[in-house]
């Protein structure tokens, strides 16, 4: 089903994966309750909803799905007493290449997610929540659905939760192998039974016109799990683990050419990229040198080994000073990665060593985006396929001298011209690969 859970690295601090790492852990309700499960839900039901939202804000919790929007701010868009039905849809459509954290939560700790959903439901006055799970996780859908039924039998889901008079039903909804459904408005369309074409914002912000045109909160699986721990630890204690503006722990999914790929849960900003690769993940394969890193899922802009970034930081006297940061010293948190022109995204770190051809790697990603573009907006539908055809042709030895310029032109004309962020997601890899590794594209540009 899914591989065995490795023991944590000494630098890790596991809260989301704490249960999963316990010896003899099982994903049933009794085991979860024996380890303090659903205590935070009981506590939450005795709190004012506004207290919970304030705690999530104070904890500096950022969404873990890729966009990194502050979760508490998102929640505060919902007006609790506006008389409309509210919904929560949990985004378990994990399909960003390089990201594989929700898989473990859904398979091994479904009750943690359900508890998080219920706390959010109480805070936002929600009586109906859907957990959207991609259909390539068939076991996960069954496991989560069984967990919901177990919790329902214990009076923790459904009518009158734990005797509080609060009702909330949760159902599992399976996707059908479309990456676009990870986009929040697309997920809502899919849940409504339509073709998952993303909706245009404004006006269709989910918090205003979401599922069934009612206020809806779409949160990533991991984000909602963090809510449980914010209540358990207290917002202040939780926020302290991370950096200002990026609280708590981050699950880093490392894949590619490292000795120990896998997921690692680290306090946000606790390690630099170099420490993550060389210490936590055991370094590169013997005799290999680092070439490139994609730090936040395939849509994040690539970083080239040996790069030195010039970043403006606040000096001791308060004035902004320019500082040089070598690539391996970039701290793995949202603000630091944004300052060097890429993003922490969903935490999928893909490492490539000097045996990798960058045009080949980009072509692989281009083919992914060409396959997954939903086809609603012309620049993305045509552009993603165009870029994919170009890189494929270059690799086949039929490159033309102006290919790099054409590729860049196509990518530049997708980003910012589409309904959803898929436009950026598919053009950023091409833009950044061309920018960081121009010589490899130029070498294929004359048909060699």
């Amino acid at each position, binding site marked *: *089903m*899914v*591989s065995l859970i490795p023991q944590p690295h000494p630098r890790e601090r596991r809260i989301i994966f704490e249960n999963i790492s316990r010896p003899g852990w099982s994903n049933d309700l009794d085991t979860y309750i024996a380890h303090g499960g659903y205590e935070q839900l009981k506590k939450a039901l005795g709190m004012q909803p506004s207290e919970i939202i304030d705690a999530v804000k104070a904890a500096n919790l950022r969404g873990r799905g890729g966009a990194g929007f502050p979760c508490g701010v998102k929640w505060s868009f919902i007006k609790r007493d506006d008389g409309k*039905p509210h919904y929560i849809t949990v985004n378990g459509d*994990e*399909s*960003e*290449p*390089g*990201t*594989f954290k*929700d*898989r473990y939560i859904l398979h091994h700790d479904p009750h943690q997610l359900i508890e998080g959903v219920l706390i959010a439901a109480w805070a936002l006055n929600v009586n*109906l929540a859907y957990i959207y799970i*991609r*259909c*390539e*996780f*068939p*076991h996960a859908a069954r496991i989560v659905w069984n967990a919901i039924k177990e919790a329902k039998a214990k009076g923790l889901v459904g009518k009158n939760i734990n005797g509080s008079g609060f009702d909330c039903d949760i*159902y599992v*909804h*399976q*996707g*059908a*192998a*479309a*990456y676009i459904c990870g986009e929040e408005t697309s997920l809502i369309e*899919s*849940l*409504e*039974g*339509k*073709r*998952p074409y993303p909706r245009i914002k404004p006006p269709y912000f989910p918090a205003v016109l979401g599922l*069934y045109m009612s206020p809806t909160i779409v949160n990533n699986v991991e984000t909602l799990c963090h809510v449980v721990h914010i209540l358990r630890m207290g917002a202040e204690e939780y926020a302290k683990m991370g950096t200002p503006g990026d609280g708590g722990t981050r699950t880093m*999914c*490392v*894949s*590619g*050419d490292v000795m120990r*790929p*896998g*997921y690692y849960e680290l306090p946000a900003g606790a390690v630099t990229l170099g420490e993550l690769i060389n210490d936590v993940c055991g370094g590169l394969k013997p005799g290999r040198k680092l070439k490139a890193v994609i730090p936040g899922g*395939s849509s994040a802009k690539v970083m080239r080994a040996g790069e030195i970034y010039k970043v403006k930081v606040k000096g001791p006297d308060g004035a902004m000073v320019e500082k040089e940061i070598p690539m391996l010293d970039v701290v793995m948190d949202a603000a630091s990665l944004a300052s060097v022109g890429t993003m922490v995204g969903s935490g*999928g770190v*893909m490492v*490539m060593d000097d045996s*990798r051809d960058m045009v080949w*790697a980009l072509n*692989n*990603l281009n*083919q*992914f985006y060409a*396959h*997954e573009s*939903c086809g609603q907006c012309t620049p993305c539908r045509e552009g993603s396929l165009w870029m994919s055809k170009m890189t494929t042709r270059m690799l086949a030895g039929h490159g033309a001298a102006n290919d790099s310029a054409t590729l860049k032109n196509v990518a530049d004309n997708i980003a910012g011209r589409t309904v959803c962020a898929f436009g950026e997601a598919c053009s950023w890899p091409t833009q950044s690969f061309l920018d960081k590794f121009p010589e490899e594209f130029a070498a294929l540009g004359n048909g060699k």
Partner: protein
Amino acid sequence: MVATWLAPTAIFRKLSMDGRVFFWRIFNRPMSSESTSRQADDIPAPLLAEIEEVITHYPVSKRSASLPLLHLWQNHFGFIDDTGIEWIATKLELTPVNIYELVTFYPWFRREAAGKTIIRVCRTLACAMAGAYALREKFCEAAGVDAHADHHGFGQAPPTSPDGKYSVEFVECLASCGTAPVCLINDDLHENVTPEEVGDIVKQYA
């Protein structure tokens, strides 16, 4: 003038569900109907019970149940034929095109039968770096599937072995990049798959 424009619309609105299905049949030739059996004539009671149950999960809008119904249908029959599209549409008080547009959009759904075992090899970057392309060819070889067969998607079944036992296809990221290369065989994920063990894995599903 306005009235004459509106008149046909009004007639269409008055047509019953059967009327809409009738038009659907006239204007849409079946995409793949080598067999004459109709899936909708053969719905077993347990499947029907599951369908009724899943519709209750969507108290606000029945239309939301279209994906779950398509999953149940495909899991039972192996693919979705015209009668399935019509039946699901009627069940959810929709027109067939509302279901047809889903079947043609989502890569998961098929309009024709695939092999008994479907081997989905992950193609995306982490798995590709770990040898997914060679792995897919190994699987094709072990399962007796033509590795170079044309597969355009759009409801077409993936390349299938002549004995109908196996289908092999490339799929996009399966979200297990840390244990690349991976493949999804029916419901089971296989991780860190090496070319040497492909033969044994395929035999497990014989």
